[in-house]
């Protein structure tokens, strides 16, 4: 630290020590408040204006305070409204999306419900047209899927499962639905609209649900269904 800087700091310190005394000295040199009150009494006009300034100051602050609060509340309401709208819209959008998905799903599939009690019914053999032979049998739980095939590569899928309560979904996007009867039981026939699509026949008998899905005519399909043992 240079000597000049040291002197400057010392000088500032001395000013700091002296200034308080100087102010006290100066204020003490003024006439006393009591003495001045007698000699320099403010006029009524001055009193009135000062009182008005004090009142206005208070009022102005209150107005300022209220407007500030109001602005904050308005901003809060705006934010709340925007956020609620966003949340509501997203909930609404989600709900619509789910509903649309369900509707789309239902458009594509027809639902067949079966209500009853589970039985210990035995699965049955299908009497197929002559050229069809059994090529595959698959079991999934209480479901048995038997595949029959002929030389031309045509297949008949024959599914059967026991039920107590169940639903079977059938793709009806390219099919026409109609009700029919198999051996006196109500059956559901989904007729293919094109040759490339399969017909589907669903019915129930003695606690078993049968489902036939071949690429053969619906009349043949019904005959196959009727061929099952009663």
């Amino acid at each position, binding site marked *: 630290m240079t000597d*000049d800087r040291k*002197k*400057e700091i*010392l*000088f500032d310190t*001395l*000013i*700091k*020590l*002296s*200034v*308080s*005394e*100087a*102010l*006290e*000295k*100066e*204020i*003490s040199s*003024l*006439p006393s*408040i009591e003495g*001045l*009150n007698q*000699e*320099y*009494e*403010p*006029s009524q*006009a*001055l009193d009135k*204006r*000062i*009182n008005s*300034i*004090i009142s206005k*100051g*208070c009022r*102005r*602050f209150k107005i300022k*305070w209220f407007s500030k609060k109001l602005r904050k509340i308005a901003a809060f309401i705006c934010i709340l409204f925007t956020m609620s709208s966003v949340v509501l819209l997203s909930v609404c959008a989600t709900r619509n999306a789910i509903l649309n998905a369900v509707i789309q799903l239902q458009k594509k599939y027809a639902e067949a419900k079966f209500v009853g009690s589970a039985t210990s019914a035995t699965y049955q053999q299908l009497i197929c047209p002559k050229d069809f032979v059994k090529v595959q049998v698959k079991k999934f739980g209480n479901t048995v899927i038997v595949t029959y095939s002929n030389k031309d590569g045509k297949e008949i899928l024959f599914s059967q499962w026991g039920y107590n309560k169940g639903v079977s979904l059938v793709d009806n996007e390219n099919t026409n639905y109609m009700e029919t009867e198999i051996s006196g039981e109500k059956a559901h026939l989904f007729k293919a609209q094109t040759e490339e699509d399969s017909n589907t026949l669903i019915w129930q008998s003695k606690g078993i649900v049968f489902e036939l899905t071949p690429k053969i005519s619906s009349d043949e399909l019904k005959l196959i269904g009727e061929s099952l043992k009663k």
Partner: protein
Amino acid sequence: MAIENDDDREKAAELYRLYSSTMLYIAKSILHDHYLAEDAVIQAFIRIIDNLNKIKTINCYQTRGFVVIIVRNIAFDFLRHQNRSKTVSIDDNLDYLSDEEPVLDNITTKEACSRITDAITKLNKNYSDILYLKMEFEYSNKEISKILGISEENAKMRLSRARRALKQKLLKEEG
């Protein structure tokens, strides 16, 4: 800062009740006109209200000093406006001032303080006031600018000139 509640209102009313005569006395001694002095008091009071949070105790010499500083500066402003054509400057004869440090090495601190105290009281009031605000009340340049109604830059410059003027006064007395 302004009057925010009933306490502030009471404080402002009490300040006026206690120091209205002092304010009038100071303003009148500078302006020599009763009506102008009352106008200066009104202006000063508005500025006091703006700085009401700086006043902690009403009846003490520091608060009286604070009130005196504000009213004195307002009165000087009034005077400057009145005498605009005469261009009275508070910085008269400052150009010759040097930054030479006063010799305070060979005396005791008590003597040095006493000499500085005397010099401060003899300073131009614009300078002594800014020294009071900075050194006694310990306000920042920003606060000082608000109290005196000048720019922050101006406050800084006036403070620097006040220090130089004080040094000059002390050097003069040494000589």
